């Protein structure tokens, strides 16, 4: 069963269509990669799923139920969709643990329980040793890791990752690759936006390529890398051999 399905989704900002008539279907347990040039509308898709913006037309179904109208962002998160922000948004004056506890409180009212869950999440993402650090003193890699931890804290069934590997060094990137596989083993479906090709190629089951708000390819990573249209629009000839 498709965990999330977008049908004819369009979003216009004034005269500009950021997303044009997008159809997208993600199966439960799948890891979907989303690539495309800057401004292609990838992040907008996440913002439409989580209702940061209303849709201009089309609809989005989550587990078969329509979520694209009548729900606010926190209600959609409550249904089981977690997200990270491309430009990280840590709660700066709180510690790492407190940041994650804030998410854990979505599923419990007890502080002890929230703390236990948050520590479990921090263990899971290998970040427990930083738990007492203030979020504002984290570096880029730390902030990206915190974004993932916080999204996991809401116990999502579907996780939307927006460029969590951008700006990381190769070792950190490998860690995130491993982390995403472990997230999948937990039964969480993942949609990941990324520019780091090595990362997205190795992590995804399927890749969707966006260009000017439209989907130009939707295939296995291997086939996407060979598609002429994708090479012209985004990858360039240098990468095409891969």
């Amino acid at each position, binding site marked *: 069963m498709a965990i999330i399905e977008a049908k004819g989704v369009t979003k216009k900002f004034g005269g500009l269509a950021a997303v044009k008539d997008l159809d997208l279907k993600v199966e439960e347990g799948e890891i979907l990669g989303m690539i495309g040039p800057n401004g292609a509308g990838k992040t907008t898709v996440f913002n439409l799923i*989580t209702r*940061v913006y209303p849709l201009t037309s089309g609809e989005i179904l989550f587990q078969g139920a329509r979520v694209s109208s009548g729900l*606010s*962002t*926190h*209600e959609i*998160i*409550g249904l089981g969709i977690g*997200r990270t*922000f491309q430009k990280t*948004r*840590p*709660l*700066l*004056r*709180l510690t790492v643990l*407190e940041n994650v*506890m*804030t*998410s854990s*409180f*979505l599923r419990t*009212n007890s*502080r002890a329980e*929230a703390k236990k869950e948050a520590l479990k999440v921090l263990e899971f993402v290998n970040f427990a040793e930083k738990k007492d650090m203030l979020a504002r003193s984290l570096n880029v890699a730390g902030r990206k890791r915190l974004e993932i931890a*916080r999204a996991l*804290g*809401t116990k999502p069934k579907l996780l939307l990752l927006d460029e969590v590997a951008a700006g990381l060094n190769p070792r950190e990137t490998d860690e995130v690759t491993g982390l995403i596989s472990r997230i999948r083993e937990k039964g969480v479906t993942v949609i990941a936006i990324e520019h780091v090709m090595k990362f997205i190629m190795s992590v995804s089951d399927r890749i969707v390529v966006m260009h000017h708000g439209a989907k130009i390819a939707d295939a296995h990573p291997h086939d996407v890398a060979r598609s002429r249209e994708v090479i012209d629009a985004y990858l360039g000839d240098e990468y095409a051999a891969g």
Partner: protein
Amino acid sequence: MVFALAFLLPLFLKDSYFRHILIMVFMWIVLGVAWNLLAGYTGQVSFGHASFFGVGAYTAGIIFKHLGMSPWYGMVGGGLIAVLFAIPMGLVCFRLRGPYFALAMLALAEVLRLITTNWVGFTNGMVGILIIPTFRSKLPYYYLIAALALVSLLTVMRIAGSKLGYWFLAIREDQDAAESMGVPTTRYKMLSLCISAFFTGVAGSFYLNYMGFIDPSIVFSLPDISIMVILVAIIGGVGTIWGPALGAFIMVVLSEIVRSNIGETHLLVMGVLVVAIIIFLPQGVTGWRLLRRRV
């Protein structure tokens, strides 16, 4: 500890002037703590908390004047009526981000001041409302307001250690991030506002019961209530539990000392002192390094 001391203090301190000062300190603790919950914890700064203070005071006054009820009922009623004023403010302003709420609160206080000034039949206008205080001794007032200050501090302590507190802080730090962690930001801002308005309204009713007199320019005052409460919180330390308590003590005592020793220019001197504290202790007194470990 501090409060055990506070409860014993008046037994030694027989001078009614000092008792009055302490009563004012406790009242400002309640007000500072209430403002701080909304602004310091939830990040929703209000420039017009005199609205709730005045509504609380006038609730007590009006039930006395029109219904012949004891103004003591205002201690509960005033808080609730203040909440009734808070709800529409929140509904209108909390959908917007930015300074709208702070400014709308400022406007509300001014509007209420004008209404109470001009609706003479209902409020006595500038003549004000005079009641005969129930007790001649200051002691009952002292214990009442000390208990109220304690309750307000305990409430904030309780909130700070619970889901409510974490979600308030998340809203303060980043509303969009909070929303994306599942926090219903509008509802929680409203909740914070209502709790804050309630305590402020109760303190307003206390003011009438204790002082025996209110008029619109006293209880809806921009400098003496709305700004003073902000200073109490800032001087003590915004977003901390004990900050407003310390700030209330400093501000009340400082303004008394300055007023009684300097005379005419006391407001100027007070202003300079406040500016100095803000420049040298931007985190408030509780943010002072020497104190930080203990507070």
